[in-house]
């Protein structure tokens, strides 16, 4: 048995190694996208913004997502100042509506608002609700593999397609080989592809509903020297979500 098993294992390792070497940048980003953009999800997240001067603001919000991240609804629970405020993002954040509970007013924002900081954080609306943007808006090229944050990673470069209106000219992404979690992403300036604007570092990977999930993400803003930490308090994937949840009516609930 042993005599048969060892060559088989060796053969499997060789196949796996050759497969990993053959994965193109497009293959890798496809797998990353499939993993991070689950059909539906519900989560509760804590967002902590830290400014250059060390000031902190903390938000707690619930987020619902459908159609692989193309539809998103975010509703703030804390702080009291923002309680009940909600943001609906459809069509990969091309359509954004904001709801203010004290005036019960809904305001539609144009796509330029995608670039605005979400509640003053280092995440833009575009960062939070762009669905399949990694594959729809970028061309991927595999670079030389590197170790990053203690993980053996694929390194890929995503260059914005000419027809895309996303506000990053390119991204450099380090993807853990073992589970396809993008552990670090560098975001480059819209006009200067050599100017790194922000870096996202993910950590605390747990398997939730069979999906490797980074429970913590920190966005470092190199321009402002600030950072925003997103921590998942609760997450569920492939939950039942009605389309009616992603309407102006649901926004005002």
């Amino acid at each position: 048995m042993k005599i048969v098993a060892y060559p088989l294992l060796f053969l499997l390792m060789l196949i796996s190694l050759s497969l990993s070497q053959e994965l193109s940048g497009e293959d890798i980003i496809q797998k990353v996208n499939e993993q991070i953009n689950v059909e539906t999800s519900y989560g509760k997240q804590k967002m902590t913004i830290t400014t250059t001067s060390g000031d902190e603001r903390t938000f707690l919000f619930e987020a619902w997502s459908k159609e692989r991240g193309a539809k998103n609804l975010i509703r703030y629970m804390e702080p009291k100042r923002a309680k009940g405020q909600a943001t609906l993002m459809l069509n990969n954040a091309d359509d954004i509506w904001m709801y203010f509970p004290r005036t019960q007013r809904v305001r539609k924002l144009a796509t330029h608002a995608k670039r605005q900081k979400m509640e003053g954080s280092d995440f833009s609306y575009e960062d939070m609700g762009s669905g399949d943007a990694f594959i729809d808006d970028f061309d991927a090229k595999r670079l030389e593999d590197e170790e990053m944050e203690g993980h053996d990673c694929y390194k890929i470069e995503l260059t914005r397609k000419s027809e895309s209106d996303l506000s990053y000219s390119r991204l450099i992404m380090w993807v853990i080989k073992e589970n396809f979690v993008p552990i670090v992403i560098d975001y480059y300036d819209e006009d200067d592809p050599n100017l790194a604007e922000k870096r996202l570092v993910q950590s605390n990977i747990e398997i939730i509903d069979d999906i490797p999930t980074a429970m913590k993400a920190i966005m470092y803003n190199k321009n402002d020297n600030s950072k925003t930490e997103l921590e998942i308090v609760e997450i569920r994937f492939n939950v039942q979500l009605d389309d009616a949840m992603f309407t102006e009516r649901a926004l005002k609930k």
Partner: protein
Amino acid sequence: MNKVILVFLYIILIFFSVQGQDLIEIFGYFETQAMGSHFKSTFYQLYSNKLRVDLQSLPSDQVNFAANFDYITYHGKTKWNVLDFLSQDITSTIPEEMVALYTIEFTDDIFLDNAYLKLSFKQFDLVAGKQQISLGTGYVWNPTDIFNIRDPLDPTYEQPGHNGVRLDIPLGNLYSASFLYSPEDSWENSGKLIRIKGNIGHFDYSFVAIETRWMFHDYMLFDYEKMNFAEAPEKRQLLGTSVVGELLGLGVWAEYAYNIMGKTNNFYEIVVGGDYTFDFYTYVMLELYRNTLAKADYKSYNLNDWMRLFSAEQKTVTRDQLYYYIQHPITDFSDIGISAIYSISDASIALVPTLRHSFSNNVEIFAYINFNFGKEGTAYAQSQGKGGLLRARIYF
């Protein structure tokens, strides 16, 4: 004073009766505000303190109860005579014994601002009680909104609740129909509204029809029996439309309303606006507004026009206006801005630099100062003086 004690007793009663049930959430804010105005070589101050207490209960997925009480106290110069701000052409016509009648007084108040029950089902939402009614897509001016009038110096400040029964029916995920009945003493005098909302591409649009009784006053006639200015109510029917979306990368919106009046001349209002956020986070907005109820020649602005403006009976005294706003974040928690309100009709302008800062998670301040640069008698006349406001708010 008795009213204040009674309402406080009522709040305390509700508070303790619901605390045990663990069903009602209590939150709100305290706001303290200082306002100043410098005119005729004197600086006047008015301070106010406002406590807003919100109650909310969600006993089930279908039922939502929400309410808030506001308690406001005023200090400093609480009596302002409108005539002090008007041109001599107007004030010289007022008999001496009537001058005191044009005083607006800020008095301490406690009131139930909003209180409603909302029932939500798959087929419809029904909201009954005092509630926020927000219509239209304009930022400063909303031609289709007959319920609220915004202050151009502070256009995002919350509006009072309005009594009514409202039914919202979703028609698929893209369309909806809304019906509102705002009862008065009779069906004829009550407010009635029908609105259809829809979506095409990146545009949301709506059509609205409203009928109401508009309560004007004639500020040149004093009714000594009622000890108030003579009422001049009239029927108002409004047909309007609004749209908001995106064009060539700009956020754009427009709103139009045609008003059919029972006694006076029909008039229309229109707003067209656009906004943009630059990559460096600077936000700019422009809004153009025409209201044909208002006058194009400032020499014909009369006492009624001004009093109706100050009493929030009409939106403006001047026909064509332009609002411009630019804002830029100076830190993650602060932004500065400046708005300019320009009357195209009378060539007067108000400049309003603003500052917003969030001190901590639940404390924020807002401040503005305003300078007017118009000729005497115009909408933003320099003779009205300059002023400012500093507001701090803590949420709990």
